[in-house]
């Protein structure tokens, strides 16, 4: 058979196109995915309560392949044995998250222990099954006190629940995380346990605050069986402003580069551009000689 280069090239390119996974669009088969419908409640620092449902399809084989379910309508309810009160609905975002925020004076249907039950429901479609999650929680009052005790900056976390008569009952035991707000996320300072409604932590003295010297301290009860997520924060002017360090002179990160960089760059550029100039000068000399020959032909 005669060797035909173009046939080889075309078949090679076609092969490349068919095998290159990112070049061609891929169809998604829902059977390869496991639906993850999660529901949590977060009591926020302003005492409002956020109900958040996350709706993600996770690939059974590839853990990195997670597809958020977008635009699904999630209904939130407060339920008791006899009653069901609709709290609101929200559609999942492009990240697969739907949430509503209940005001701090929201009243709930509670049982005799003071617990109330919240439910998130996705009604289902032709392609996706109905999803439902429920959580029961108690309303915790969490507070953070920031004070200097014997010149030591101390974080005191207090937590209690209110009984049916409105009497504060200190929390017996709950894990708490103390963290400070950073630029991108919160930095955990300590993890401890609230006992008899209180927990104390001594802050390190070498933490920088923001540019005004402020530091925001968070106390967080996370994913607790009885209380869910509870977040409280307080800002205090404790620290020295996080002014930028005195600039090192002539370094990689300072305004001006190390001296050697200027020296090397100058030598390189002068050498190269000098050579360009030399070449152009010689071109002018060639031109000059050409003009001379033109004016004095055949001399």
């Amino acid at each position, binding site marked *: 058979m005669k060797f035909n280069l173009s046939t080889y090239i075309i078949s090679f390119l076609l092969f490349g196109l068919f095998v290159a*996974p990112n070049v061609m669009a891929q169809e998604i088969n829902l059977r390869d995915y496991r639906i993850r419908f999660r529901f949590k409640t977060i009591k926020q620092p302003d005492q409002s309560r956020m109900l958040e449902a996350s709706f993600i399809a996770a690939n059974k084989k590839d853990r990195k392949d997670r597809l958020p379910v977008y635009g699904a309508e999630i209904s939130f309810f407060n339920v008791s044995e006899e009653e069901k009160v609709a709290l609101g609905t929200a559609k999942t975002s492009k990240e697969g998250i739907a949430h509503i925020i209940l005001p701090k004076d929201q009243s709930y249907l509670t049982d005799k222990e003071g617990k109330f039950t919240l439910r998130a429901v996705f009604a289902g479609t032709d392609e996706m099954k109905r999803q439902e999650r429920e959580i029961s929680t108690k309303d915790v009052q969490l507070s953070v006190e920031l004070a200097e005790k014997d010149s030591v900056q101390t974080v005191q976390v207090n937590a209690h629940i209110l009984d049916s008569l409105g009497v504060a009952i200190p929390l017996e035991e709950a894990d708490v995380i103390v963290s400070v707000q950073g630029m991108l996320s919160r930095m955990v300072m300590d993890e401890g346990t609230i006992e008899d409604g209180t927990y104390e932590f001594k802050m390190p003295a070498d933490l920088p605050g923001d540019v005004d010297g402020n530091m925001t301290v968070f106390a967080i009860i996370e994913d607790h069986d009885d209380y869910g997520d509870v977040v409280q924060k307080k800002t205090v002017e404790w620290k020295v402003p996080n002014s930028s360090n005195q600039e090192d002179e002539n370094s990689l990160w300072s305004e001006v580069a190390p001296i050697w960089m200027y020296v090397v760059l100058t030598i390189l550029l002068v050498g190269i551009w000098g050579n360009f100039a030399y070449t152009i000068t010689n071109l002018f000399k060639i031109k000059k000689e050409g003009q001379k020959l033109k004016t004095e032909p055949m001399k």
Partner: protein
Amino acid sequence: MDVTIRKKELVKEFSPMLLKPSKWSKIWMAILVAFILYGLVALVVQLTKGQVVTGMRDNVVWGIYTINFIFFLCLSYSGAFASGVLHFFNTPWKNAVSRIVEIITVVSLIVGPIFIILCMARLDRLHYLFIYPRIQSPITWDVIAITTDLIGCLLYLYLTFIPDFAILRDNSEGLPKWRKKLYTSLAIGYQDTPTQRRRLHKITKIMSAMVIALAIVTYSVLAWIFSLTLQPGWNSTIFAPYFIVAGLYSGIGVVIIAMYLIRKYFKLDHYIRKAHFLSAGVILLITALLYGYFTFSEYFARWFSHKTHDANLLETLFNDYFWMFILANYIGILVPIAIVFFKKLRTIKTITFAAVIAVVGLWFNRYLIVVPTQETPYLPIQDTRPEFVHYSATWVEWALSFAGVAAFVLFFMLLMRLVPIIPMSGIIDYEKKGKVRRDGLTQQQQP
């Protein structure tokens, strides 16, 4: 040998290539212009709607524009390197390929940087690169290096064109007036006198050494843009030499493809011979072996050290990009080696086929260097929308990429209409030295 007559003969021989575009070359040009126009439409869409029309997002901020930029600079670098070596060492077979590589060098150096400009979302701030340069930044080095390299290569290309401009000026009977004027002004009064010849030879030789150095510096700087970061897959001490070897590999590939097409469509069999392909094939083999060695070292070290993020990257490469990895790093290296290694397999067509595989494989290799690393960042990807997690080029990016390739070929064809693709002055010099005896004519005269 009467040089004047020989010059006339050569001008006559190459005139059809310069003056009369064939039907096919007109069709080709029309197709290329259509691609460029399509790219311009995509450009308008991108400029009016912003970068959101591309597949680039918060994590993958460098897509196929950057890959094309590296690829074209890679061609330019290898072209400059090859051209510099051919001139500096006065290689016996330089005549056949020197102009091809010179044109590749300059055209790719013009087309390449356009892609990096396309990658920028805030073109209104482009001049900040020059107003507020940070000497410590590899980006600044890159701007300086590419600008210097472009000027150096243009100057060098011009030097190599001067004797041919002079020949065309002196034998311009039947040429349109504008061409005569153009050749006269570009020839800058070059009459091939001993002084002019010596002077031109001296500066060409110096510039040929300079462009080799410039090419190495420019391409190293480009590699450092990646390797001086701490990103997994990029932070590597061998990245600069790896880029240089990869550049040579693809550059030789493109030169072979160009030689094949020019030889075939302009019927220059007596100038571009099998021997040239065999020599270029051997260079392709050597660079393929070196490139394969560097590629193996690069991935082997990452696999063996098994740092968390390197392991994640390799997992991504071997899962999400499995076939592309095989295509780029196995087929793209081993097939050209296998073809060129065995003497019996070495024909013009097989060597060209090996070159095509090398070039396509290398483009995919660039893709694997640029994209998967950005898909496996140190900080977890916050926005989990699929287009944020996985990069996929859009039609705008493909349209502009193909327009870039079309512009490259079109510029190449236009430059070929300005000066002969085989340097006439080189042929005369060669014949003067008596090393060959007017091969073109003697071969044509053979029964």
